[in-house]
């Protein structure tokens, strides 16, 4: 149990991070070049960490699966990044951002971590501006803000609908500066397939070169995983096609606990699915909810009509009706559940998929009337264009259709206040860890967390770990290194040579995805989770018997890459269901049908489930460890957005 010591400092909340930083050990500038650090992934967390560690003078080895570090999926984040600057003088503060985040997460995260995140939010904006991130500005030259999903203050900084792209390119440019300096050595098109653990410490990784198929070991004094989330377990999600859980799952199988795997966010404003060939879903920024009004026809018989022919009196602006205070801006989990409810009633619109119309309208006609099309274009132009290119419909004339899609995973590797996993020397940053968003993440908080971890938290805590430890030189023929490389090779061998090769990786990916979407998506219940667990166990057996990978493993082979990732998603999917079954309450995005109020609101059970569920891997069944959450400063309340 002592493994789950959060190492969170005590004392007044405001001083905790400062005090903790002072207590951390430092490494003198002239000694830093003696230390080697591996960073996997080059999204916001990974790129910002590489840049910062490089600037400090450490030797960094960085890896990504893309063909360039600039392509990590952080680039697709649209809406913005929160910071409690209170530039708008609307009552914002560190405390309010902290409060909103902890409440938004339905009181399933640590107070200390979230307060630190809120404090660091302001430094992120300063840092990004100094890197040349072209945030939106007022005519006065000051930075502009907007309000964003689930908050009553304007604290979101944005660069049109491409905030993630601009922040990532900022971090990438700083990282590039350090690659030029020689302190960061980067390798693209490499996939991490194993962690090397020696004497209980993470000391390296095994990677596959995706072009040549070569398997190689890389050694260091510690390893940081910035490898993102696992929404692609659902097959259809808003993540990039390559996003995967393999790095985090390898870490888990080597002893890192996986926390709250069932906490997955289903984002309300995505382009609805249309058919079987679909390979991914596209998010439409939730900033659209600031001005767009969400509605569905009141009468089922209107569902296939042209929406412009349905008079206002026959429209149900259901979020405004159900949640008058927050209306169209209720947090994501609440909006998604309401939307699903409407479609389940049969009042959905758009294409019929599996005998159901999956979509509701997001309508801009009233704001176009009020502000004029030009103003709307300036604010949302690129999003409208994107919608039109996907659907072939013009949202200036016909209301958009939206439906929820898997988007972000709050769960991830369990980490302490120092962002270290239960394996010594193995750290996890950004979406790869579980730390800050509890059971639901608020809009514009993912970029904030990735960058806080990478620019400000991990550089300090990693240095402390290095300063306190002793690291003997390890050679590539150390028995642990050899056995890790062997296990990667054996696994690839099994993927290439299944006993009865029959089905492609995508075949299995769709299967596991559909089970998770139905049983571990927006609504969960005991019976269907139990059934799902059984089916997934069978899929795992079938997978290893029937997986068919063509081509060679000594070559650029995208089928082999997919097969390895799907194998890990199947095992993770199992754990997601086990976790969802264990948590007999509803909280945030985790909606157990048995524990929903009649209004559809989540009924939390703080007494029995006020904990982080951290799962330990065992060959037979996972072991649950609990980190109890204490709320010293905020009294958990019912999350009322009415």
């Amino acid at each position: 149990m002592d493994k789950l010591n959060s190492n969170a400092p005590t004392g007044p909340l405001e001083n905790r991070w400062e005090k903790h930083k002072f207590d951390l050990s430092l490494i003198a500038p002239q000694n830093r070049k003696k230390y080697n650090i591996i960073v996997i992934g080059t999204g916001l967390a990974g790129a910002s960490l590489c840049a910062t560690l490089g600037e400090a003078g450490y030797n960094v080895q960085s890896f990504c699966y893309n063909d360039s570090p600039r392509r990590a999926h952080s680039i697709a984040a649209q809406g913005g990044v929160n910071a409690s600057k209170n530039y708008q003088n609307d009552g914002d503060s560190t405390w309010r951002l902290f409060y909103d985040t902890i409440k938004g997460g339905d009181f399933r995260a640590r107070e200390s971590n979230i307060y630190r995140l809120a404090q660091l939010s302001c430094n992120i904006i300063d840092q990004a501006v100094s890197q040349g991130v072209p945030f939106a500005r007022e005519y006065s030259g000051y930075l502009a803000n907007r309000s964003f999903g689930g908050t009553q203050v304007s604290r979101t900084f944005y660069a049109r609908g491409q905030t993630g792209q601009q922040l990532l390119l900022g971090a990438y440019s700083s990282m590039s500066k350090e690659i030029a300096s020689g302190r960061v050595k980067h390798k693209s098109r490499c996939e991490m397939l194993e962690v090397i653990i020696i004497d209980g410490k993470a000391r390296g990784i095994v990677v596959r070169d995706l072009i040549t198929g070569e398997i190689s070991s890389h050694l260091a004094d510690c390893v940081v995983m910035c490898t993102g989330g696992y929404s692609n377990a659902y097959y259809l999600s808003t993540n990039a096609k390559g996003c995967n859980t393999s790095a985090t799952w390898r870490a888990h199988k080597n002893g890192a606990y996986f926390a709250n795997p069932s906490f997955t966010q289903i984002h309300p404003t995505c382009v609805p699915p249309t058919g079987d060939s679909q390979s991914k879903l596209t998010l439409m920024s939730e900033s659209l909810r600031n001005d767009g009004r969400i509605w569905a026809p009141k009468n089922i018989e209107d569902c296939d009509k042209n929406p412009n022919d349905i008079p206002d009196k026959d429209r149900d602006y259901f979020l405004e009706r159900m949640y008058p205070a927050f209306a169209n801006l209720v947090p994501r989990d609440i909006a998604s559940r309401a939307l699903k409810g409407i479609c389940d009633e049969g009042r959905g619109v758009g294409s019929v998929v599996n005998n159901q119309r999956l979509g509701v309208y997001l309508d801009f006609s009233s704001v176009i009337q009020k502000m004029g099309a030009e103003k709307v274009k300036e604010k949302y132009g690129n999003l409208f264009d994107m919608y039109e290119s996907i659907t072939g419909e013009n949202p200036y004339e016909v209301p958009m259709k939206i439906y929820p899609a898997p988007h972000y995973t709050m769960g991830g590797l369990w980490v302490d206040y120092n962002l270290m996993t239960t394996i010594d020397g193995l750290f996890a940053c950004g979406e790869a860890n579980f730390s800050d968003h509890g059971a639901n993440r608020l809009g514009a908080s993912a970029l904030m967390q990735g960058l806080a971890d990478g620019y400000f938290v991990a550089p300090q805590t990693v240095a402390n770990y290095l300063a306190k430890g002793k690291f003997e030189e390890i050679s590539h023929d150390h028995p642990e290194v050899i056995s890790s490389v062997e296990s990667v090779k054996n696994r690839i061998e099994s993927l290439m040579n299944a006993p009865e090769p029959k089905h492609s990786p995508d075949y299995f990916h769709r299967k596991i995805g559909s089970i998770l979407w139905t049983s571990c998506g927006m609504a969960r219940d005991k019976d269907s989770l139990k059934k799902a667990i059984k089916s997934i166990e069978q899929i795992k057996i079938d997978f290893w018997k029937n997986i068919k990978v063509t081509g060679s493993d000594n070559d650029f082979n995208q089928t082999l890459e997919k097969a390895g990732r799907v194998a890990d998603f199947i095992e993770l999917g199992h754990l997601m269901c086990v976790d969802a079954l264990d948590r007999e309450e509803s909280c945030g995005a985790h909606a157990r049908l048995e524990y929903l109020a009649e209004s559809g609101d989540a009924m939390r059970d703080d007494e029995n489930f006020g904990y982080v569920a951290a799962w330990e891997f065992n060959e037979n069944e996972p072991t649950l460890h609990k980190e109890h959450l204490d709320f010293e400063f905020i009294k958990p309340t019912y999350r009322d957005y009415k």
Partner: protein
Amino acid sequence: MNFTLHIWRQKNTNSSGQFVTFNVTDIDSDTSFLEMLDQLNEDLIEKGEDCVVFDYDCREGICGTCSLVINGHPHGEKKATTTCQLYMRDYSDQSELWIEPWRAKSFPIVKDLAVKREAFDRIIQSGGFISTSVGSAPEANSQLVNKEDADCAFDSAICIGCGACVAVCPNASASLFVAAKINHFQRLPQGKIESTMRAERMINQMEQEGFGSCSNHRHCETVCPKEISVSNIAAMNKIL
């Protein structure tokens, strides 16, 4: 819908390649171009053959990974669009499609339709940044930025680094890519200080990587999925 595909296949950088013809049938019109290729690959797995390698990731037009020349046009004929955002409804049924990789000396083919674009990364490493360090940044609003400058910087900063500008250029020049980055920083007070040195270094690196020079064909602007203007190149030339 049914299509005849002529796809460039090449084992690796050092081998020679050729077009191979495939037929895909029963494609739904709402299928995206890359999903159509996914279906082809599913058919190839079924037959026990090696799949066609092509680059993709976000499939929403922002990561810059996808890169096909379709019937002679980088990212297809549709304006302001990446390959991943093309839909088969834009093509006529029974048509023939010629699908090739980016072709430029500085972007060697890795396999089939995938190329290596690390030259772009090295150009950024040569100077495509502001030399600031974490922790040293002043309060964000302490330096005001004219809105027009911020907007212009943004218009240059949205480059996704896909390389279509190079693929279409008769000189295989990376001028638009380089100029967009130089202008992005030049328009902002934070980046202006290093402008001349940055431009010299990046242009020098571009030449070292084997990219050609700009001779005003302006094809780059036409195929750029983010519609980055060639006026960036003129502005870059003024800095030197």
